[in-house]
């Protein structure tokens, strides 16, 4: 029997089955590549393995014994380490302090023994063939070295399984080579690795075996020799997507927004496009490819370094969100709880938040005026509330998202920016939001939507822009867009 077996794991979120009878196995000293689109269930599976999610069906069996983790600490004690994309090191502490964080070596129970800590840390680093001065501050190390410090930390707690989530996203090619050497060395010594990455070439290089997830199901697994890049992509995207979400409309001709040569750090590079009234423009790309930053720089949250924003044929300087709103824009942000809603205010207050000018006279809010909007939008968007006085905190995800959309609709926008508008909401509410997007488009509102769900983009958008590392890789029309083409552009195939 394999060292680790995750057997028939099923996990439901309200309205969504995130994992459906997924089984993976991992031998001692094996490197398993775990691939899948955003939202395919990779993170959910790893959260279960690391004890972050406890409410699931199925078994975790390690070394022949069934395990039930009720917290991350138990998972760590069993020998499982998770190295997230954003590293968990303390930059202002030294390398050896980070490696032995939480298991400091002391004399008489409380006096730190630096010499021993030095030695132990050095031994761990030497064993994996890494030369880093253990006395350096972590903040002075490159990202590659920091990654190696994380691995050393995992080894210091005698981890048998190390999970790496997109470990190479910030590494140079030399650093990647070094990392791969270390992972191979670990494997020889019996430590197993679960390697999660969007970079398929890397997975094919380093992994012994590969597991492919799609929509919460395991759609492929086997020896790395059985796979190549194209096969992986077609497994990840599948071919069962209905493309009948929408018929493209072209009632309107005026260009609402045109952007030219937008630049923001290395996140948005020389991006130009335009959107017409009633047009739905999709933006596809992997997580971290600069999609959110693109929307944020148009909406005035991030200050553009270069580039022009032209609204209704007039060059406009958008310095902050208020300017954007005055120019007829609305942004439904990625994180509705942190950026979209005031959770402690009720639904009514949230809906009128951006139109307080319209519903007040001499600064005094008039109930007569605001109630009209509140009633209209609760009805139009079908927000399910017992009363408009209910706190936004107590709504379901779908109704919270509709409340955010209602807030922007109330401003009568010309352009709506949607960032992962259907993320984490149930299927029924998703459908309702699709219908809304269609009806906005018919009313002549231009829409730019970012989404990780390719089916959604293909079904709803007139055109799809694909970006990678902040740069535009291509534009696909509604007719030519399919998941395979998008993924190839997004991954640089």
């Amino acid at each position, binding site marked *: 029997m394999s060292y680790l077996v995750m057997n028939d794991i099923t996990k439901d979120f309200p309205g969504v089955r995130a994992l459906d009878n997924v089984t993976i196995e991992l031998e001692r000293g094996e490197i398993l590549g775990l691939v899948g689109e955003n939202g395919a269930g990779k993170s959910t599976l790893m959260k279960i393995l690391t004890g972050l999610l406890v409410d699931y069906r199925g078994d975790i069996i390690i070394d022949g014994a069934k395990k039930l983790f009720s917290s991350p600490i138990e998972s760590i004690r069993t020998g499982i380490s998770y190295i997230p994309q954003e590293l968990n090191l303390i930059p202002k502490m030294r390398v050896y302090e980070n490696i032995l964080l939480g298991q400091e070596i002391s004399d008489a129970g409380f006096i730190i023994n630096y010499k021993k800590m030095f030695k132990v840390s050095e031994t761990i680093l030497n064993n994996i063939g890494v030369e880093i001065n253990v006395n350096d501050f972590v903040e002075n190390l490159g990202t590659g070295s920091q990654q190696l410090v994380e691995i050393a930390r995992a080894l210091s707690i005698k981890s048998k399984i190390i999970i790496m989530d997109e470990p190479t996203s910030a590494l140079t090619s030399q650093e990647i080579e070094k990392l791969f050497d270390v992972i191979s060395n670990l494997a020889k010594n019996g430590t197993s690795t679960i390697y999660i990455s969007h970079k398929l070439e890397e997975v094919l290089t380093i992994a012994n075996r590969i597991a492919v997830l799609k929509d919460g199901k395991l759609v492929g697994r086997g020896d790395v020799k059985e796979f190549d890049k194209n096969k992986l992509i077609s497994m990840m995207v599948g071919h069962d997507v209905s493309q009948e979400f929408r018929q493209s409309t072209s009632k309107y001709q005026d260009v609402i927004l045109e952007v030219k040569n937008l630049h923001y750090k290395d996140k948005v590079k020389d991006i130009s496009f335009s959107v017409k009234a009633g047009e739905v423009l999709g933006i596809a790309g992997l997580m971290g490819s600069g999609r959110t930053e693109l929307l944020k720089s148009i909406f005035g949250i991030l200050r553009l370094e270069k580039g022009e924003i032209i609204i209704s044929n007039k060059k406009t300087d958008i310095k902050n969100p208020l300017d954007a709103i005055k120019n007829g824009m609305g942004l439904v942000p990625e994180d509705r709880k942190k950026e979209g809603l*005031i959770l402690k205010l009720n639904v009514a207050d949230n809906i009128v*938040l951006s139109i307080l000018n319209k519903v007040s006279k001499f600064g005094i*809010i008039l109930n007569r005026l605001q109630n009209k909007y509140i009633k209209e939008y609760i009805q139009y968007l079908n927000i*399910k509330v017992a009363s408009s006085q209910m706190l936004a905190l107590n709504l379901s995800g779908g*109704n919270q998202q509709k409340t955010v959309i209602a807030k922007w609709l109330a401003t009568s926008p010309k352009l709506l920016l949607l960032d992962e508008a259907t993320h984490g909401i149930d299927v*029924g509410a998703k459908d309702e939001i699709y219908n809304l997007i269609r009806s906005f488009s018919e009313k002549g509102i231009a829409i730019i939507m970012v989404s990780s769900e390719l089916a959604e983009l293909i079904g709803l958008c007139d055109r799809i822009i694909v970006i990678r590392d902040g740069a535009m890789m291509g534009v696909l029309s509604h007719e030519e867009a399919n998941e395979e083409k998008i993924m190839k552009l997004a991954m640089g195939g």
Partner: protein
Amino acid sequence: MSTKIGYRDSRSSRLTAGKVLSNYGIFIAFIILFVVLSFLAPGKFLTVLNILNIAKQISIVGLLATALTLVLIMGEIDISFAGLTTLCGIAVATWQGSALIQGIEGKVGFTMPVPLAMFLTLLLGLAGGLIVGLIVTKVRVTALLVTLGAGAIYEGFALFWSKARAVTGLKDSFKIFGQGYSLGVPNLVWIFIVFVIIITFIAKKTKFGRHVYAIGGNIQAAYLSGVPVTRVRTIVFGILGFTAALSGILLTSRLNSATPEPQPTYMLDAIAACVIGGTSLAGGVGNPARTVIGVLFLGVIYNGLTLLGVPVALQYIIKGAIIIGAIVLDSMKQRTEGGYVKE
């Protein structure tokens, strides 16, 4: 099935014992306190004179607490207002030409009519608050530290200006605010009532007030929704500064003199009154009108303790315990509402 997911927290629509207690507990506690004191100090507590006395005592700190409520709703804190109150008390005293500093010969300060002195004092307070607000919002430093420093500066100026002595010899016309009566009720109390109505109206009925709640609830979402975050935050600090000046004027008028030592209890009492009145230190929640209940509650307790002959030292201990108790209750409420969410 998806259509059934309307809202998941059915508790929020039901009236439970816990909800009643957390929403109306302070009213119930206040009534019990009132009844108990009436029995413990018969003929002393429940008299018109004593009640008016309590009202007069709480009015000045009440003004500060009411304005402070706005700052707390916005998710900020200010610990400089007691110092500003002292400074403004000294200012309004020395600026009216007749003032004397004890032990020093001759008049002090500029000579100007009382209304002008009052007007300039209010401006001084407003400016103090706005400057703190600008430092907090523009430079983006923690309000706690900025106001800690500002408080020291105010007290320093107050000592410097008054040569560290009490300022007396004020004009008679100035006494009417702190010592006069209208319709049998002290003017101080009238001013307090009107002030509470105005601030509550601003908080609950105006665009500005809605912005304050939105910023306290989620400053990022408010900013992305087009709320002029910097302006609103600065003005709220300005309002508290203005109120500190008003309090300083009334205190000087009531005592007929101004001392450069800050009133030691103002800071503690004002913050405590807000928390007891249900304002969350985490921001986004609160009501200036309910702060009045907090002020009354504290006022009645101090009055009762004094009537019952409890030593001052013990009064301090009791006061501290009440404040900690109120804050513990507040944080427990936060926890059951928001929870420590683990994905």
